[in-house]
């Protein structure tokens, strides 16, 4: 297979294009992304036969994909940061109505202070919205995930929206070699969207009507149950993709040199690539280090993570988001994986790269150095000591 040297955002736009979306909606202002910008060009040039709806806010963009999805259309949107936060009310509605919308959350910091750079606070804020959340390691995976996302979302046993989380700038603005997906390949992988229930005058239905205390709780129960069922579907779709395209970036998780490792770093998104380089560097010196990528964050693959890490002595969770007043978010969940198990490894949490603070090889080395110290703890790595007045 040949690769194209292409910007991450453009690669994703092209993949979304071959997924044959019927409706794309976006709010054309900063913060936005090249993804919807390029999709608007593809639609205007007639290369993608979709209705492209420009709207006056991100809230409206989410509402347009909600409404159009309810009529049985395959729909897509993308946003980031503040725009994402403005969508959140509607995101809960999309999941509650069981609409298989696919969106890209280009991961960026949220205000205040104003900061347009990369971290993962935006999508983490919608963790409990009922959306399946997948995090991409590189632009190949980000591109491929979008084709997989529609297949997962539209599975008749799932019918939940899927959010692809892709690190802003670090991936979206980077040019890399990417194997693009042709229309023919996409059609072979992704069948047309044929929902069992949709809005049509021929068979009037109501979506999202009022449900009182006698029924609301059951809707939450079913989404929770479906989330658990989607673990298998996400994994199967990744296998199907592997079979057709020969590329596999992990199902629910992916591991790199974890099998015999005594220390494993756990992370999500583009930081995985940098960590892999450090793993190889330390392995060459005889240190048994590995990295585990959480690819599916919601649903959270507890069993797979436990299976992969049960032999490990030390775990360092690195993350680009924080639950203020608690600490690391992912580290909390990794700790819960080991609750009630016979052996618990030492688990340290590290918050880094907030607001675009560059994550370098030195940052990862510092994480590993801190992990070697005795206590399990959580801390910020890469702080500017001059700005915080010393230690």
């Amino acid at each position, binding site marked *: 297979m040949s690769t194209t*040297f292409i910007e991450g955002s453009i690669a994703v736009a092209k993949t979304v294009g071959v997924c044959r979306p019927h409706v794309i909606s976006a709010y054309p202002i900063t913060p936005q992304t090249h993804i919807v910008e390029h999709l608007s060009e593809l639609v205007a040039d007639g290369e993608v036969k979709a209705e492209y709806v420009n709207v006056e806010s991100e809230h409206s963009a989410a509402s347009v994909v909600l409404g159009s999805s309810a009529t049985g259309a395959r729909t897509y949107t993308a946003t980031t940061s503040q725009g994402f936060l403005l969508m959140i009310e509607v995101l809960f509605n999309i999941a509650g109505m069981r609409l298989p919308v696919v969106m890209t959350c280009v991961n960026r910091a949220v205000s205040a202070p104003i900061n347009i750079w990369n971290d993962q606070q935006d999508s983490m804020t919608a963790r409990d919205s009922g959306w399946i959340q997948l995090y991409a390691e590189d632009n190949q995976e980000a591109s491929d995930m979008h084709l997989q996302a529609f297949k997962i979302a539209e599975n008749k046993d799932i019918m939940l929206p899927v959010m692809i989380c892709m690190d802003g700038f*670090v991936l979206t603005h*980077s*040019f*890399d*070699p990417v194997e693009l997906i042709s229309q023919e390949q996409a059609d072979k992988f992704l069948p047309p969207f044929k929902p069992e229930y949709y809005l049509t005058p021929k068979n009037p239905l109501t979506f999202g009507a009022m449900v009182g205390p006698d029924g609301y709780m059951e809707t939450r129960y079913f989404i929770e149950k479906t989330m658990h069922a989607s673990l298998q579907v996400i994994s199967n779709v990744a296998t199907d993709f592997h079979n057709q395209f020969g590329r596999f970036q992990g199902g629910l998780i992916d591991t790199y040199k974890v099998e015999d490792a005594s220390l494993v770093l756990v992370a999500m998104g583009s930081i995985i*690539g940098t960590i892999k*380089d450090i793993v190889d560097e330390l392995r060459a010196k005889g240190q048994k280090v590995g990295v585990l990528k959480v690819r599916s964050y919601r649903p959270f693959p507890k069993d797979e993570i436990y299976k992969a890490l049960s032999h490990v002595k030390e775990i360092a969770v690195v993350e680009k988001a924080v639950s203020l007043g608690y600490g690391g978010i992912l580290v909390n969940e990794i700790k819960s994986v080991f609750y009630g198990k016979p052996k618990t490894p030492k688990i340290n949490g590290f918050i880094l790269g907030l607001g675009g603070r*560059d994550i370098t090889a030195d940052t990862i080395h510092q994480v590993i150095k801190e992990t070697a110290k005795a206590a399990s703890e959580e801390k910020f790595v890469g702080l500017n000591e001059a700005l915080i007045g010393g230690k």
Partner: protein
Amino acid sequence: MIEIRVHGRGGQGSVTAAELLGFAAHSDGKYAQAFPSFGSERMGAPVQAFVRISDKPIRIRSQVYKPNYVIVQDPTLLEVINVLDGLHEEGLLLINSKKKAAELGINTKIRVKTIPAMEIAMEVIGRPIMNTTLLGAFAAATGEISLDGIRKAIQHKFPGSVGEKNIAAVLKAFDFIKKESL
């Protein structure tokens, strides 16, 4: 793996230069990665862009701190920022300037080359955009990318007569550096 840092000012096409370098290396059959220094770009403000070229897939995602090569599009940047920062001792600093390297007063043992890219671009392209011209000089001075790779990159990015003019400027800059080193 080799790493390249491009310095310029917003509007001079530094990110495009990085993209074209990466595209050329990719056409040459290598792995490449190109990206801007992330920020809110403004016309005229100092900007940076980065390129990595390798025989193996590139996984690292940090910015470039120890480049093998530095390309400076705007010589006035020499007064504003330390373009030598982190540059390998056996590396190369390539500057768009009609002055000779010795006349620029750069205090370094690292190899410095200049190319009158602005003058070449004005003569051949007819516009004061010298990013592609510098690529020709870079190829001649380093051998890290081929002329054919640059040609493919420019034809992809700027199809038609605009691309052809840029390619002519690349060839002129390539010859300029080659003749100088004879």
